[in-house]
């Protein structure tokens, strides 16, 4: 008895401690607050399913605990029979039909909401912003309509519908910003799509959701939602200025260390190949040994940006002639 009390007490303590921490910040008991219509509609579907499943859960577990308490043996020996009830057809029919009804309601609700989840409302769909996303081991590369490129962070103007074409250059990845929408797999040889219409300026975080290899957990992503003007200034000028740094941090540094001092990959800070444009391009484009072909679809501008940044901020070796 004392042991059971101890276990119950421990359980109660943990539940209380968890609940109090969790209640402070929506603690993952419900989906995250959504900032795009598709994510909001998914959340509505979630609450409909939650209502039914919570009710069934409570009914089943309550009955189970009640029966366990009510019909415990109370010292009756094993030889005493319980009620010899073999079943009840009416009950079987009832507890078949009610779940069928519940499933029909859930199915109906999901399909009622579906058009607003899988595609943007037509009123807003005119003139969408179209962004191309290439997933790589182990970074995200976004290409905007004017050709500007960003790495690991997606810049979006608030209130505008954005369509993203998602592709992978190597293995399966999965693009996911929970507060804006559901996951969409990035699969080589296949283009998938998702759309957002972010309703609030801010930064939304996500990460790769399909196991993609050694640095899966480092494939973090940010969606930076700004005003239309800030967005325009980013794709017109800032993107190009920041590209080299973003490439170093998003593509190279995850494996070679923030200063190229070596981590999982070898130390490269003093490697003269870094400042030989053709040598650098060859390795980044084709990979070498364990290093994947991280830059297999890069433009010349991307290589130039990386070279410039490395030469200015990373390379610690002796300067080479003509480098």
């Amino acid at each position, binding site marked *: 008895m004392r042991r059971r009390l101890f*276990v119950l007490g421990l359980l109660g303590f943990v539940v209380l401690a968890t609940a109090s*921490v969790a209640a402070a910040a929506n*603690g*993952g*008991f419900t989906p995250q607050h959504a900032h795009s219509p598709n994510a909001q509609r*998914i959340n509505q*579907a979630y609450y409909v*399913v939650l209502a*039914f*499943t919570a009710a*069934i*859960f409570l009914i*089943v*577990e309550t009955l*189970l605990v009640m*029966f*366990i308490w009510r*019909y415990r*043996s109370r010292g*009756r020996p*094993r030889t*005493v*029979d*319980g*009620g010899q*009830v*073999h*079943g*009840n057809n009416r*009950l*079987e029919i009832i*507890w*078949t039909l009610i779940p069928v009804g519940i*499933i029909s309601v*859930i*199915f109906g609700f*999901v399909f009622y*909401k579906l058009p607003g*989840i*899988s595609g943007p409302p037509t009123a807003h769909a005119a003139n969408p912003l179209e962004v191309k996303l290439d997933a790589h081991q182990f970074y995200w590369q976004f290409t905007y309509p004017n050709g500007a490129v960003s790495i690991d962070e997606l810049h979006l103007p608030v209130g505008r519908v954005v369509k993203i074409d998602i592709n992978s250059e*190597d*293995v*399966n990845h999965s693009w996911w910003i929970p507060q804006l929408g*559901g*996951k*969409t797999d990035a*699969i*080589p*040889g*296949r283009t*998938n799509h998702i759309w957002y219409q972010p309703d609030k300026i801010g930064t939304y*975080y*996500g*990460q790769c959701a*399909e*196991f993609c*290899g*050694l640095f*899966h*957990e480092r494939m973090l992503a940010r969606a930076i939602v700004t005003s239309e003007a800030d967005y325009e200034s980013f794709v017109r000028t800032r993107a190009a200025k920041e590209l080299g740094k973003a490439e170093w941090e998003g593509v190279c540094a995850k494996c070679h260390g923030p200063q190229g001092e070596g981590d999982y990959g070898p130390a490269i800070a003093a490697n003269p190949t870094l400042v030989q444009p053709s040598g650098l391009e060859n390795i980044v484009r084709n990979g070498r040994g364990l290093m994947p072909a991280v830059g297999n679809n890069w433009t010349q501008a991307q290589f130039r940006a990386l070279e410039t940044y490395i030469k200015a901020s990373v390379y610690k070796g002796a300067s080479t002639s003509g480098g």
Partner: protein
Amino acid sequence: MAARSEAAYPVTWKSGRVARWLVTVDHKRIGILYIATALVFFFAGGILALLMRAQLATPNESVITKNRYDEVMTMHGTTMVFLVVVPILAGFGNYLVPLMIGARDMAFPRLNALSYWLFLLGGIVLYLSWFSASGPARAGWTSYPTLSELQFSPGHGQDYWILSLHILTLSSLASAINFLVTIHNMRTRGMTWMRMPLFVWAIEVYSVLLLAALPALSAGLTMLLLDRRGYTHFFIPSEGGNAVLYQHVFWFFGHPEVYIMVLPAMGMVSEILPVFARKPIFGYTAIVLSTIFIGFYSMLVWAHHMFTVGLPTGLDGFFMISSMIIAVPTGIKIFNWVATTWRGNLQFDTPMLFALGFIALFTMGGLSGIFLAAFPIDWQVHDTYYVVAHFHYVLFGGSLFAIFGGVYYWWPKIFGRLLDERLGKLHFWLTFVGFNLTFLPQHMLGLLGMPRRVWTYHHGGLWETYNLISTIGSGIMGLGMLIFLVNIWRTQIARRGIRAGNDPWLADTLEWYTTSPPPPQNFDSVPYVTSARPLRDLRRRLAEQT
């Protein structure tokens, strides 16, 4: 009787203490070998799980390296699915099916032995791959291409993984055929289909599913192996292949596999509950029909694992509705089990605790499955810790709780001694509490955005809190499993377990009619079966005569 068994089994080198296990074709010995081997792998897979939880206890932890983590994660999943749950159920099926249907042995005893030795070989191949030059497979237990292709998974670990699964597939196919032939042809007089124990019904459907699903896995693995070593491009898009094809083939096997792992466990619960409620099972026919219905529908739901790959809406809708339909027969089972406890004389021995724990936890796992079946919701929770929580509620809270119930329930039949009740109850409570501490917070982690299969995470706050609780829970479960080992040691090796008679639980089915442990020929005579509870009928007839 003793004289008779000696005459049938003359003393030769085959009677040696070790040799008799190596050359055996007796379904009981093979069953014990299966269960013991699977338990060894269970502890190996459990240690891998504890390593992962230790690594994830706090953010930016480095208890093990990321390379090692991916190997551990892959081996944990592969071990628990292919080397623990499926074979331990095959072990119980081997031991129990002939006894439950009043048969002398399985239909093909030598094929049966082959099944076991192939299982052991497959396990050894998988575990020896730790020693291959580049380590074992590390592409996850699903091993999706293109990650599992040679370009991204160099070395031989992935090849050993494929080889091991090929061997295990052969083992399971042989045992499935054996079960089907045995159940169809060797039932004792009077045991009609609707008087058959529910566990045997579950093994029947389990075997049909294995036969239907395993060839798909073999085909997928063969294509993957050819891609890696035979210069083909089935799954390599840059050469004209299709990476999604593998997912279809894998899950065409993989989802029936889930029911392969859970239906016989449900069958065990259906055996244990009535015995400890001192009642017949509520709705025998409904449970049989729901088992068949689940088996059938489990073949039609595979793409609910693929809602995020960008299937056409029509397919998403079809797989959503077929997945949700499975909730209906599953619900029928749960309601019937709860109703079985109604007006019972509930005996809370350890098997009963695990069976009741199964109902409580499996309900949770089933209901979280409804969220995953609704494909837009799945777009949010897919491949997160929410899914990890869901399938552990189904496979650990479900299958393994039932299996532990089965271990405590049939141990006295198999070894002649009862496992210790106090240690058994401690084992149950530690596992139950530890299980919920480990996996309940993982639902929250998933909704907070934590993907599965990550080596570490970079958030503090709630992520850290829930992960830490989860790790503490896993430690409590680990302690529970140590208690289980102590219990086995105390009962069998220290020989302090109470000797069980033929029928310590006053049970219903034929295996309790014979001695504990049963003689090599199982039965000297088998009573004519007049209902699904032949032993209860027998007790009543005896009581009327005296």
